[in-house]
């Protein structure tokens, strides 16, 4: 705990951060007063989900230095395996545990696939590449993304494989805003997963080892950590999280080859705003992006929903080149 306090107090010493938090609060209040409470509620729900999608991306970059352009495709894998599992369980649909089984299976599929991809691709690259690691892996993830999208089309076709809803029933009302049960489910899954990830990274032996690799690779080797295995594990966790998000959001993102495009863009926006490699920051930034989108959509028009955040992020970066909560992970990303 004291660690978190230390970090927070350091963040707050920066006037930029303080100013930004004040700005976000102002935006939220403005939105609520001029628009309605739904801006706040919807931003919270959407933000939690974006945070989940982005956390894996941040983790992969922080630990492995891989800016993953294929993160959206692992989301796609999640929607697909979620759909296949859910329809396979059609005999027992309606039982409340079925959605949970579905998303857990998606998590497992994403995890295993991520591990395989790391072993087949990134482990091989690590043996060979000396310089330009970040950009080379970036290009490779572009290739992975192309392969996964089109493999989906070849094997499972182009149909929209989706569901109406995990949970039937009337929406619940929060602050006068109706929220469908599925979205309540999604925000709960997001909250639990993020808390789980946070616990894993902060307090477990493996989580510490992952952080150790991200902070100092030779140091990690020196204390006996199998760095390669930790990187494989990291990529697997990150892919698993993306797949989990995909399966959880199946009601909103039916599975088809290109379903990962939107989550990918959002995840990148969030991660850049937070500072690459900063998992905790990604969670906060997820909410900020959601709030920005909602306000833009309401006050300027939906068509501008991504123009404004993109432009704003570039401006924020101009003031603070490592993102809002960026750490100096220079040695990795300056290549």
């Amino acid at each position, binding site marked *: 705990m004291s*660690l978190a306090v230390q970090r927070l107090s350091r963040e707050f010493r920066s006037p930029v951060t303080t100013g930004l938090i004040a700005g976000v609060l102002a935006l939220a209040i403005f939105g609520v007063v001029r628009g309605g409470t739904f801006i706040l509620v919807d931003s919270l729900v959407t933000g939690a989900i974006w945070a989940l999608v982005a956390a894996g991306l941040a983790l992969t970059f922080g630990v492995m230095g891989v800016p993953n352009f294929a993160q959206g495709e692992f989301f796609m894998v999640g929607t697909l395996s979620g759909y296949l599992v859910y329809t396979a369980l059609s005999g027992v649909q309606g039982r409340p545990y079925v959605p949970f089984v579905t998303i857990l299976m998606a998590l497992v599929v994403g995890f295993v696939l991520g591990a395989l991809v790391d072993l087949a691709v990134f482990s091989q690259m690590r043996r060979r590449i000396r310089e330009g690691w970040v950009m080379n892996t970036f290009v490779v993830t572009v290739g992975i993304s192309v392969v996964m999208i089109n493999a989906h089309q070849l094997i499972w076709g182009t149909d929209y494989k989706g569901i109406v809803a995990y949970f039937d029933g009337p929406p619940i009302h929060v602050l006068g805003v109706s929220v469908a049960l599925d979205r309540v489910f999604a925000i709960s899954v997001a909250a639990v997963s993020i808390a789980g990830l946070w616990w894993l990274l902060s307090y477990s032996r493996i989580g510490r080892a992952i952080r150790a690799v991200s902070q100092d690779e030779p140091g990690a*080797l*020196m204390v006996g950590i199998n760095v390669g295995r930790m990187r494989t594990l990291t990529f697997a966790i990150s892919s698993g999280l993306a797949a989990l998000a995909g399966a959880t959001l199946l009601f909103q993102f039916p599975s088809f080859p290109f379903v990962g495009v939107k989550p990918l863009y959002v995840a990148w926006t969030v991660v850049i705003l937070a500072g690459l490699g900063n998992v905790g920051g990604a969670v906060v930034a997820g909410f900020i992006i959601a709030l920005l989108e909602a306000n833009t959509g309401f006050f300027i028009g939906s068509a501008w929903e991504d123009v404004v955040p993109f432009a704003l992020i570039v401006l924020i970066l101009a003031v603070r080149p490592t993102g809002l909560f960026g750490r100096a992970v220079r040695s990795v990303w300056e290549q």
Partner: protein
Amino acid sequence: MLRVTELDAGYGFLRVVHGISLQVNQGELVALLGPNGAGKSTTLKCIAGLVRPWKGDIAFRGHSIGGLRGDLVNGLGIGLVSESLNLFTGMTVYENLLMGAYSVPEAEKRRRSLDFVFSLFPRLAERRPQLAGTLSGGERKMLAIGRALMGGPSLLLVDEPSLGLAPKLTQQVFDALRKLSDDGLTILLVEQNVTATLEMVDRAYVLEQGEIVLEGSAQKLSESEHVKDVYLGVMA
């Protein structure tokens, strides 16, 4: 305990170490001396598995460990305190020490190691919840040594412990190393500070331009003309 034979190593096209051989016996405190760029650190990294040797053999307790990955070398009981320390700057002192005992499964053993490190460096106990990145230079060095000790090594490799430290702090670190050696730990030390080192070690090798030019007991080396001319002369 450690025997290095005809070791060649380097980076890219650049060969840094030319066929050196050395040996460290059980319980000894041995130093590898030499000027900057002589290949001392590279040798140490080869032993620790951070740099892959091009040629030659490294044997630990009779088993060849040349080219073994760093984490596996660590698992065999070889601890390394590198020149740049390689601390986990975003973790607390306590977490760093805990990471040092990463491959020690027994909680009891970990706790005993921790107590030992804290008794050796009481300063670290005071700094326990602080982030490693916020420590002073001397404290970092202590933490790096402490972290290496947490794994319960039977051989400790220490790279330039005096680097960047004030003489007083250097002395403290050297005292600690001497004490560890007296307690029976085998230590291989790389140093540029020849005078202070020769005062405390049992034996030493002098490495120049990747080759061993002199070796022998500390006594013998302090009396050698070459050492006097090149190193002690400069120091004086």
